[in-house]
């Protein structure tokens, strides 16, 4: 019972954000989130995806310009960050040989921050990812 109440709360909270693209109002929020996200990116992601998100041919995919990174499937993005990736999958017409690290220890806020950073850096522009969205996504990831 408590659990359902909790879930409901998330849905209400997150829907408030989901429908809002990056408006003037959310500008400072995303700026602060991206700044925090950049620090996480430099520590956790840069080695493979490079400072400029360009990746390494056939080893680590570029994040700059990647359709998944800019896309709307936030559940998929949260899953990638938490679980890492070790399967051979096609990414924008190419295959990559490296394994991506899992990040089970990152908090919901940290995941939202790093996603906001990669979704809105270099040539990328995409809607904000909220903490509530990450929280909701996490419950679906086993």
């Amino acid at each position: 019972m408590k659990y359902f109440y909790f879930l409901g709360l998330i849905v209400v909270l997150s829907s408030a954000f989901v429908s809002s693209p990056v408006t003037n109002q959310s500008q400072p929020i995303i700026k602060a989130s991206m700044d925090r996200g950049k620090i996480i990116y430099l520590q956790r992601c840069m080695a493979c995806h490079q400072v400029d998100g360009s990746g390494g041919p056939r080893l680590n995919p570029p994040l700059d310009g990647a359709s998944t990174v800019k896309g709307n499937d936030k559940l998929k993005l949260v899953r990638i960050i938490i679980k890492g990736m070790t399967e051979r999958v096609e990414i924008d017409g190419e295959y990559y040989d490296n394994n991506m690290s899992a990040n089970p220890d990152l908090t919901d806020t940290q995941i939202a921050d790093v996603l906001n950073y990669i979704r809105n850096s270099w040539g990328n522009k995409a809607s904000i990812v909220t903490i509530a969205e990450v929280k909701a996504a996490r419950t679906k990831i086993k």
Partner: protein
Amino acid sequence: MFSFVFSSQIQHHMKKMFLIFLLTSISFVSNANDSIKVNITNQVVANADNAGLILPSGFGALIAADNLGRARHIVATKQGGIYVKLERLVGGKGIIYLTDANKDGKMEVETSFGNYIGTGIAIKDNYLYASSNEDVFRYQLNENGKVTNPDNPQRIVKGLWDKRQHASKSIVLDNAGNIYVNIGAPSNSCQEVDRTKGSKGMYPCPILDSAGGIWQFKVDQTDQGYHNGVRYATGLRNVVGLDWNQQQNKLYVTMHGRDMLYTLYPNLFDTTVSAELPSETMYEINKGDDAGWPYVYYDHFQKKKVLSPEYGGDGKKAGGEKAIDPIVAFPAHMAPNALLFYTGDQFPAKYKNGAFVAFHGSWNRSPLPQEGYYVVFIPFENGKPSGQWEVFANGFSGTEVVKNPRDAKHRPCGLTEGPDGSLYVSDDVKGTIYRIVYNAK
């Protein structure tokens, strides 16, 4: 016999631009579209710009072939043809056979075959050997060095681990009927969860039973596998370059060292240390050797094997008492993808029996500039390095500084020595085959 059919201006140009090497009998041909060819038996002419390479004085380079696809390892036949192994199929084929009918140095695709991708390719006694990421095949060569059974090779090894990471199978042969196959560890440092912060190193590392070493098989038996192969050497994370030293009758290998010291252990290493460590290493291998991966890595500043942080190391504690030491330690992450002992007579005496190593170039040095993307030379005497390594051929990347690996226009990946002592280098970005010749008197 000379037949000049071009103007004195071009002739002047030619003199300035072209380095001509070892003239025997000459006939110059200038064709309609202004590309000047020199048709000489047993000799070639370097490109005006040495194909973009920076070389020691007296050396020149030309582009033997271009746009082949992802050209990994290469091997020259006694007759001067070259087999190229591709990492991605081109027109459904994974091996290209190049020949140079008119001996002008520009090679043509004679045939292509093999419906599998891969890296390894080698020749021994009239057989061509090639690997996919799981299997090894052999083909019969005829008296011209051409494969006679392109569509039905003998599969001599099957079912090796292909777990995506470090899956390429480099191969080399000895003089006693054996083939050596690298099986790279599909892992950075044998953590429970690969490349993940806070994940422990597994002990003992279970990967070592099936990978992280060199396996020995017979050259002539069908469908060998783990059950009847010999684990010849272990503790080798990922060997891509390997060669059989004929003088010493012994295996030598170059290993890709571990990545991500900073990302995984920011409390112990900063980004600079992580960019400079650990060393990329060259080993002389005796049967049964253990090079220490994943428990240790080599540190060329402290000149010792250091315990890996996944196994309780702190960047200082030594480890691996039973593991062998490298015979050469290079800067970190440069990715030594090919090793070749030079046995030819074309290059000056200092190069004879020395080692060339092709560095594919780093990715794991960010935010510092990347390193590698060149071919180095190490002088050898009696199977041991007799001097410092030096950059031999640079300029493949086409850019002064490689910030990110994507910037590199070409990346050295394979090496082979032609019957005349020319050194060939393959590039797996554009599929260029460079030929390096010595042309000073």
